[in-house]
């Protein structure tokens, strides 16, 4: 028999392994989006149609930028731009002008991700970078928190303001966030913890309901779509450091208040756990998480801002390459790598 006659029509020739797990990057991304739905719906429940508009504007900015400048044709389908848009929207106040939210999305994806080379290449969390840009560009608008109103349909601020027009802030009835209240208020009041936990307080859209963020985060952790070491290390270290300073009388915030207020929950479960911008090893994740926790507490107590989660995470994002280098795994049957050789 001639060898050439029996080439088979079963033609797939691939390198091992020939079987793969069902896990896929696309599936991870969309399950993050799915887990954010309860928080998103709650924000609309709390803040009315304004919340929906702000989120849509920031999502639109992200998707459009990804579509126009993304390096791969299918980069919208992987869901990562959708996550950025949702997260950015969720950390803005309800009365935020839509054009600003849209611009934040463009900046987050454009300068937070595309310029680095797209998915997987960025150093900073794109959503937080977008928010940091908005914080720098529009410091007043981003800290104008709407008060709760009886009329659900009412807009919670000047959502339809146009660029270069002085905002008609006078229309908006503003309230303060629990953190701001306690830190800068003339008459410091502590918001009850249960309100913080359920989310019936003022603040950014998705920052208010600790319980829904916890549920979404737990869902992702159980499915293995986020590394639980990161939120656990952040929350534990925030609790420990703030407890210490509270006990020493240096801080007005009780550790429980620290945990449940502001953007800590959203940041710990969704921003810091961004796989691209967090360390590779669990050991590294603990260094990263404790670093964030410490920075959050320091900024909240002594910083010029009521909230420090955003800058804490961005600062630690910058350190991730160094953390990765310092926490390389020790090879099987070998000694730990000599740290002096790195670099």
């Amino acid at each position: 028999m001639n060898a050439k006659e029996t080439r088979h029509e079963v033609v797939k020739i691939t390198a091992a392994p020939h079987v793969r797990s069902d896990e896929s990057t696309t599936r991870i991304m969309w399950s993050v989006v799915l887990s954010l739905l309860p928080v998103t719906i709650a924000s609309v429940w709390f803040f009315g149609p304004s919340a929906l508009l702000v989120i849509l504007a920031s999502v639109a900015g992200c998707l459009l930028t990804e579509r126009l400048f993304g390096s791969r044709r299918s980069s919208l389908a992987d869901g990562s731009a959708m996550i950025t848009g949702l997260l950015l929207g969720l950390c803005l106040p309800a009365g935020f002008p839509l054009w600003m939210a849209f611009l934040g999305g463009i900046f987050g994806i454009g300068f937070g991700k595309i310029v680095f080379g797209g998915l997987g290449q960025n150093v900073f969390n794109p959503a937080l970078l977008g928010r940091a840009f908005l914080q720098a560009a529009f410091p007043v608008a981003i800290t104008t928190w709407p008060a709760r109103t009886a009329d659900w349909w009412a807009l919670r601020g000047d959502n339809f303001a146009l660029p270069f027009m002085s905002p008609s802030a006078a229309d908006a009835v503003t309230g303060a966030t629990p953190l701001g209240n306690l830190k800068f208020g003339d008459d410091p009041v502590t918001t009850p913890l249960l309100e913080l936990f359920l989310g019936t307080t003022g603040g950014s859209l998705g920052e208010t309901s600790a319980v829904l963020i916890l549920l979404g985060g737990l869902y992702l952790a159980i499915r293995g779509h986020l590394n639980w070491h990161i939120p656990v290390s952040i929350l534990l270290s925030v609790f420990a450091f703030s407890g210490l300073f509270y006990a020493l009388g240096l801080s007005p915030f009780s550790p429980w208040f620290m945990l449940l207020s502001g953007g800590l929950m959203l940041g710990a479960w969704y921003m810091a756990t961004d796989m691209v911008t967090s360390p590779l090893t669990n050991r590294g994740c603990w260094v990263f998480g404790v670093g964030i926790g410490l920075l959050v507490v320091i900024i909240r107590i002594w910083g010029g801002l009521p909230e420090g989660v955003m800058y804490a995470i961005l600062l630690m994002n910058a350190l991730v390459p160094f953390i990765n280098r310092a926490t390389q795994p020790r090879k099987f049957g070998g000694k730990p790598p000599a740290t002096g050789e790195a670099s």
Partner: protein
Amino acid sequence: MVDRLPSFRNGVHPPENKDLTSGIASRRLPFPDEIILPLSQHIGRPAQALVKQGDRVERGDVIAEASGYVSSFVHASAAGTVKSIEHWPHPSGAMQPSVRIEVDPHSTQLQRPRLVPHWDEVPAEQLSEEISKAGIVGLGGAAFPSHVKLRPPEDQPVDVLMVNGCECEPYLTSDHRVMLEQPEYVYQGIRIVLRALGINRAVIGIEANKPDAIEVMRENTPDDLDIRVQPLEVKYPQGAEKMLIKAVTGREVPSGKLPSSIGALVQNVATTASVAMVFETGQPLIERIMTVSGRGIKNPGNWVVPFGTRLSDVIAACGGFTEDAAEIVFGGPMMGQSQASLDVPVLKATGGILVLSKDECKRQDILPCIRCGKCLDACPVFLNPQLMGALARVDRFEEMVETNLNDCMLCGSCSFVCPSNIPLSQLFAMSKIQLRRLSAA
């Protein structure tokens, strides 16, 4: 889980798919009309052919001898006439010098009587020589000549024999069947290997997904030897030498060293059974139990296949392909090799032939790495496949040595878990070849 079974750290859990064949007793495959015996079926130098065109050979006759210390003998697996010695498609993908034997259809295919000394009456050194002459190589997949392993370096005495019954590759059930069907051969082989090493302690490691094998092996344990059957956690790659040793002893074989450096030696269960076969019946290594499985083959099963049988003959004996057969693999799905030709012969190390359906071997598009770290959590030797993959993709092979590429055993765990479907272990296999080329230049 109150009592966790011993294992190693990291690793993966691919779907086992062993129930396709684990309950099917092995049957003898009909002798084909032609067998093709490559001179290279083992690690080391190819054997030297001793026959020429037109020679008549009986089943069990030596047709090629070892051409050095790390080499092996090859025996005729069926009686017949040497048709030619020529280059023939080899499962490795290359053309290899092979002895083609036209099988005599009228032969009874009884093995020519072969004199083998009684294992208990010859000096221990002679045992390894007999094992070499019988062409025994490791049947777990690597096909390393067994007699070499039986003579560890002088300064590294072995004190425990580890018998590998893990069979951690999905689908494969040939070792499982060996333990169920030939426990007395396995133990006799262990006895002989222990004597060759001059020790009396052995541990048989079996993954807990084979409770019947664990039971049979326990029932048959001889009282006069210090042998323990150790169930192990079901996890890939539990059957890798270093992982097995870690699970059983808790010790790590130092990087770049042999298991004997910590006093251990690993032999596969099928290898020990074939050692016993040599001394009990005189039969050299000419056939083995092999799993033919996957959802692309009509009748999966376990078969006793003479080496040199063409893939096409095995497929035909198993009822042929199903409609959606997509890929043929020699070995397991994690480390086995895709086959392009149905003419390739089965080799000593071929523990399984898989015909995977389209659904079983489907792959999704490769996406950018999102640095999720799942590959680091999967790597059984604690490397950083994320960093290594990034280096390999831009051809920085020399730097990969610093990231311990040499410790990578290409088990495929990182590729298996990667959500972006980056072909990491393929990149590392390529990098190893490129590095060898660079150092040769």
